[in-house]
């Protein structure tokens, strides 16, 4: 921290004191300004960050003690130093009690003065350091979904902090609904690339040809229907982060193109021949087990190694049940605000049910459940009856049979399909899976889609 990072405000009705102190602090390189009374001091305090205020205790109008009280109301962390013309210890002690850093009796020994200021600046430096540390840590808990006290989630948060400071490619592995995109966003917004965009491309939602043109863009006439030149997501992500969701779903051609892109850092638009340089960082996410895809030969080994520099494994919610109460409460707070409802908490037996459930849809499912319960809730607390749509047999929870993961997934998808009246787009949105994935699951479990066919 340079002296010029510290701003000092001098408040004294005597011009000679203001001038002498201004000069003294300027010699040390601090930023200095002065005010002749409390009112103009308060005006200056509104208009900018100040670190240290030196204030005369005896001033016409609002006196120093009162001014200090008002300053502390604006910002309790500003350092105040009281100046008194005579040894009026009582008032000065009162000032200390009310939060003054120290007081000086005018005239003060130059050496005492320079020690006092050095200490005040040191205190301020520590304050800034703490603040930075706090912001640094808070930066990673941007959303409630990826917050948590469980050891599993703490490890994830630590990893986010670590990789944010690097340019490494990252693979985020986790089930649907675990908040992989939020983690990608946390990495991006804590990295040096944060002032540039993070562009998301869900590889599962496009056919290979479309995916290629989405990523690389195309020139006019590149293919039938390419009526205009179009910039791809890659160009939009210049200097920022490219987030490739469902990376496991890209085909052979795309895998080859992506590998080339990572190696050369340049590309050509479809139908074009100009090489375009681009500065990007890749973060990708997968629900698939890429290793077995590599072993099965459906995912290129060389690309896998390029991408898998850092792996973040996001635990499913059932493996961090410890976090469920806090996450549920955070959602309650969020929705209460959004819905303007006075719901403040959740009853213990409802919480017990949430804890007993295995959450195949993970945090996203928990969020949806809380959101619906909030709509239904009549009182200040979410009660078990508000969740009867979700726990229909909640009155007799004793004989819950233990289901396999597949059965739970099947039941859950069926439930969501009922909820959306068979609207695939909506259901895929709620489950945060691609339509393709949802179709595959529907086929696999032979689920009812409420419509004659599966075209969305």
């Amino acid at each position, binding site marked *: 921290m340079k002296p010029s990072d510290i701003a000092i405000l001098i408040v004294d009705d005597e011009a*000679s004191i203001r001038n*002498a*102190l201004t000069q003294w602090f300027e010699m*040390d390189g601090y930023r200095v300004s002065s005010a002749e009374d409390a009112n103009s001091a308060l005006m200056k305090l509104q208009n900018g960050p100040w670190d240290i205020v030196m204030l005369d205790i005896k001033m016409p109008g609002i006196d120093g003690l009162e001014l200090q009280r008002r300053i502390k109301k604006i910002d309790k962390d500003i350092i105040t130093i009281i100046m008194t013309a005579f040894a009026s210890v009582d008032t000065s002690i009162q000032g200390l009690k009310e939060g003054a850093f120290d007081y000086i009796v005018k*005239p003060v020994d130059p050496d005492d003065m320079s020690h006092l200021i050095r200490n005040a600046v040191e205190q301020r430096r520590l304050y800034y350091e703490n603040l930075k540390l706090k912001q640094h840590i808070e930066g990673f808990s941007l959303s409630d979904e990826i917050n948590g006290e469980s050891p599993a989630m703490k490890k994830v948060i630590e990893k986010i902090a670590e990789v944010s400071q690097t340019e490494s490619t990252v693979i985020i592995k986790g089930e649907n609904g675990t908040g992989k995109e939020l983690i990608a966003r946390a990495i991006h917004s804590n990295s040096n690339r944060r002032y540039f965009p993070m562009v998301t491309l869900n590889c599962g939602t496009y056919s290979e040809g479309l995916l290629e043109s989405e990523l690389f863009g195309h020139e006019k006439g590149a293919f039938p229907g390419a009526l205009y030149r179009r910039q791809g997501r890659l160009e939009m992500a210049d200097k920022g982060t490219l987030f490739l969701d469902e990376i496991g779903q890209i085909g052979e051609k795309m895998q080859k193109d992506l590998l080339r892109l990572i190696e050369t850092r340049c590309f050509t638009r479809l139908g074009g021949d100009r090489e375009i340089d681009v500065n990007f960082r890749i973060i990708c996410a997968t629900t698939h087990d890429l290793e077995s895809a590599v072993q099965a030969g459906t995912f290129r080994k060389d690309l896998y190694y390029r991408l898998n520099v850092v792996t973040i494994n996001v635990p499913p919610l059932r493996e961090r049940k410890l976090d469920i109460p806090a996450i549920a409460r955070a959602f309650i707070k969020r929705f209460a605000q959004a819905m303007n409802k006075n719901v403040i908490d959740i009853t213990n037996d409802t919480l017990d049910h949430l804890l007993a459930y295995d959450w195949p849809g993970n945090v996203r499912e928990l969020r949806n459940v809380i959101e619906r319960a909030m709509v239904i809730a009549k009182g200040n607390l979410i009660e078990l009856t508000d969740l009867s749509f979700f726990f229909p047999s909640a009155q007799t929870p004793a004989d819950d049979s233990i289901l396999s993961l597949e059965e739970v997934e099947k039941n859950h998808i069926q439930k969501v399909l009922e909820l959306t009246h068979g609207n695939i787009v909506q259901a895929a949105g709620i489950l945060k899976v691609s339509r393709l994935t949802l179709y595959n699951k529907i086929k696999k479990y032979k689920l009812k889609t409420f419509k004659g066919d599966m075209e969305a």
Partner: protein
Amino acid sequence: MAYIYILPIETGSTYWMEPLEKSIQRAFGYPIKKISRDISLEKAFDIKRSQYNSSQILLQIIHDPPKDAAKVLGIVNTDLFIPILTFVFGEAQLKGPGSLVSLHRLNNKFYGLPENGALLTERLIKESIHELGHNFGLVHCHDPKCVMRSSTYVEDIDSKSHDLCQRCRNTFIHEKRKA
């Protein structure tokens, strides 16, 4: 051609003048001229404090300076103060036209020690260069040997050199070019 003017005010003996001139010229590269002018110390005397108001004297020094003056340095032998502090060794305004230094608290006699002309001269040189340094736009420096290090005790003055450190020298050259 611009000069640094030295203006002794009721100092009595000026045996330190020649080494002072040489050192200042070496530090800042300006030739030196001496002047004498009517400065009223009496006007700056504060009866309650039995000390002289440094800012008041400095105001008189920088009033109507010679046309070819780069800076004016006044030297007194009285105890100086500014209202907020119990005393000062000297005073200068940042990028201002003039400086003031007092021999009073640089003299061993003030601390009850035997007089030492060579030591007094050395201290005067350091404080003069320090204050003129402020005039040339230099702020306090943390280099322990640099003359721009802030001194609140006379011991602090003795422990630093009378030279600008490399960083302060660069700043000085930069400021001079700007001016």
